[in-house]
């Protein structure tokens, strides 16, 4: 418990110092990295606890972004309605996707989420009446609160960092709770858990909805950060980016996704200055991770690199 408090204090202090020393651009990139960290966390809740690799967590974030844009920017509803509605819609989509994929395992789950995610992406592109199609919906802004302009990158940083730290903390607690351990148990041996009388389906379902809620929060921040909602956050490239971040950092730990998102966004920012081939870079990073350190940086050890070939990414 003591150590946990120290770590939290260290992270908060680090974020504060960063706010003081970093330039405007670095702060806005950090904002983006935190948003991706949340999406990667949403992915990792399913991948790390249940062995389900989902390619539609960015879709859930995108759905939430569209709700914010449509209700907030187009219909001018108050923030107190818009933001909860967005997160709830994400959770609702998570439930629907959960129902549609409930019997799928491992690879077929990956395929189904890819197909479902791309289906929503295609709809966001083509259902112009609702989403504005390729042009999207612009003018999504946060209000002034107590004299602070929440759209300012530094103020936004404070808001986002607070939420991100709290959510990561909550997920950390969740992983160590009885429920979190139950999920791990299900991943290891579903039959046994069922035989022991644990509510297996309910637990998996709850994990799905939780991951959906985290993605929903990420989506809310994403749309306010961009000021415009367009189909691009729902594209396959984004889904793969988030997956790569989680795999790179290590999806089985709590802080792995944040680490991965941070590294990937830094890498992208650096690479973008020299070449247009960023998708190639993401692809290469993903391939190298799978081959060399399937459990990501946070569980990296030289031993596993030597044994390399047989290290496992999942227990299925």
């Amino acid at each position, binding site marked *: 418990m003591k150590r946990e408090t120290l770590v939290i204090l260290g992270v908060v202090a680090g974020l504060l110092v960063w*706010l003081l020393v970093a*330039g405007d651009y670095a702060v*806005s990139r950090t904002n983006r990295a935190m948003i991706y960290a949340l999406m990667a966390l949403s992915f990792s809740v399913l991948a790390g606890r249940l062995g389900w690799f989902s390619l539609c967590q960015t879709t859930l974030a995108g759905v939430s972004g569209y709700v914010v844009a449509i209700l907030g920017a187009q219909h001018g509803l108050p923030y107190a309605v818009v933001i909860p509605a967005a997160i709830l819609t994400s959770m609702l989509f998570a439930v629907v996707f959960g129902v549609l994929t409930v019997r799928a395992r491992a690879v077929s789950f990956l395929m189904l989420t890819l197909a479902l995610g791309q289906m929503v992406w295609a709809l966001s592109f083509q259902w112009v009446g609702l989403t504005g199609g390729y*042009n999207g919906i612009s*003018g999504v802004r946060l209000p002034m609160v107590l004299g*602070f302009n929440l759209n300012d*990158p*530094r103020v936004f940083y404070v808001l986002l960092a607070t939420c991100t730290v709290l959510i990561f903390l909550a997920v950390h607690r969740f992983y160590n709770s009885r429920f979190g351990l139950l999920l791990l148990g299900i991943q290891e041996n579903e039959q046994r858990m069922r035989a022991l009388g644990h509510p297996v389906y309910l637990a998996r379902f709850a994990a799905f909805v939780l991951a959906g809620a985290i993605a929903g929060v990420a989506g809310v921040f994403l749309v306010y950060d961009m000021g*415009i909602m367009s189909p691009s956050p729902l594209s396959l490239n984004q889904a793969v980016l988030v997956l790569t971040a989680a795999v790179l950092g290590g999806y089985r730990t709590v802080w792995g996704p944040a680490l991965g998102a941070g590294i990937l966004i830094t890498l992208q920012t650096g690479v973008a200055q020299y070449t247009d081939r*960023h998708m190639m870079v993401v692809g290469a990073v993903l391939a190298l991770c799978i081959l060399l350190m399937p459990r990501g940086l946070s569980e990296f050890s030289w031993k596993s690199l030597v044994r390399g070939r047989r290290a496992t990414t999942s227990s299925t």
Partner: protein
Amino acid sequence: MKTLKTIAIGSASALAVAATVNAQADDTLRVGVIGPTSGVFSFFGEQQRMGVELAIEELGDEVAGYNLEVEFYDSQGDAEVTVDQLRAMDSRDDVDIVVGPVLGGTGLAGLEWASGSGVPTVISYSAPEDITMRDRVENVVRAGWTGAQPMFAFGEYVAEELGHEDIVMVGQDYAFPYDQLGGFMRGFCAAGGNSVERIWHPTDTADYSSILATLPQGDAVLYNGAGSDGLAFFEQYRDFGMHERMPLLGGSNFYAVGDLPEMGEAAKGGVSALQYAEGLETDNFIAFRDAFWEMHGEDTMPLAPAEHGYVALKMAVGAVDESGSLDRDAIISALRDTEMEDAPRGPFHLDEYGNPVQNIYINEVKEVDGRLKNVPIKTYEEVSQFGPYDAEEYMASEPYSRDFPPSDCSDDFYQQ
């Protein structure tokens, strides 16, 4: 709660720090050029980049007493990336003027950002009307066009010169084709057209055979779209022999941008309208084209996005030259007064809303010197983004949409 307060105070002091860091002495004019140089729309971004490179070469390293530094940024055709890159220009690279974005959606994202940041911005090929109409902001002007702008003239031409009365339009279902059709219908109905039947299909529809199977009869078909959809439609239209039943007219990008070499011989005689034509024979245009070929090779035809990028950079530098400083307000007011007599596309000046008033060419695809080109067969001069209509009245009517303006030319809308 206490932490929150600390953080808030921290952020405020950081702002102060950041503000002082930014004020540095400057003898460099930095221009950031943004366009999709990768991704599905990279054709447009590459064209713009080539046009800008030509302009840089012509301008040299030093302009108006400043060192000219031009940096290219890739938008990937993606609104999210566009916003990121624009932020990088402003807060990391200290860019004085932005050229671009190129596409509709990224243009709106750019407008959104520009209205917040105040950086002088010259939008190049991006055509949503409201950038220079209902949502216009002081620091954003345009070197290109609006979706409806060339189509007023085209509608008039189709009704008057080609004598078509009933048109069947097949179009991509999104904002740009809505604007194009809106302009077309206004011109078409005013010049004696009768009706336009519209069939919208989702973007990325690869197979048009069933749309063609149920196509209603008219005097001509207008394909209101471009890119891979346009190319596929063109091919399938001929596969089913529809071109023998009804001639195929094109929206502004249909024959004009990129697809023409792929369409081949069969495209000959295709008519469309744009503020640009690579078959122009004016001295200014030929000088531009030859210089472009010298730089990028004769295989690449300079098309409208290239010319607009070229012109946009010249507008930006011209404005600095005019104002003699890097002061934002001075640059903006000089930009708004832009008049370009010698632009490759023909002379233009900006209207009071910041969009070019320029020639519109009715183009026909012809083979010249062994390659297919859009050759102007009629020129409408001094066309503004409002066509012949009053600006305020025009902006008061609702924006073009899937069902607006009405299909039937006898509707009250056209009688005003």
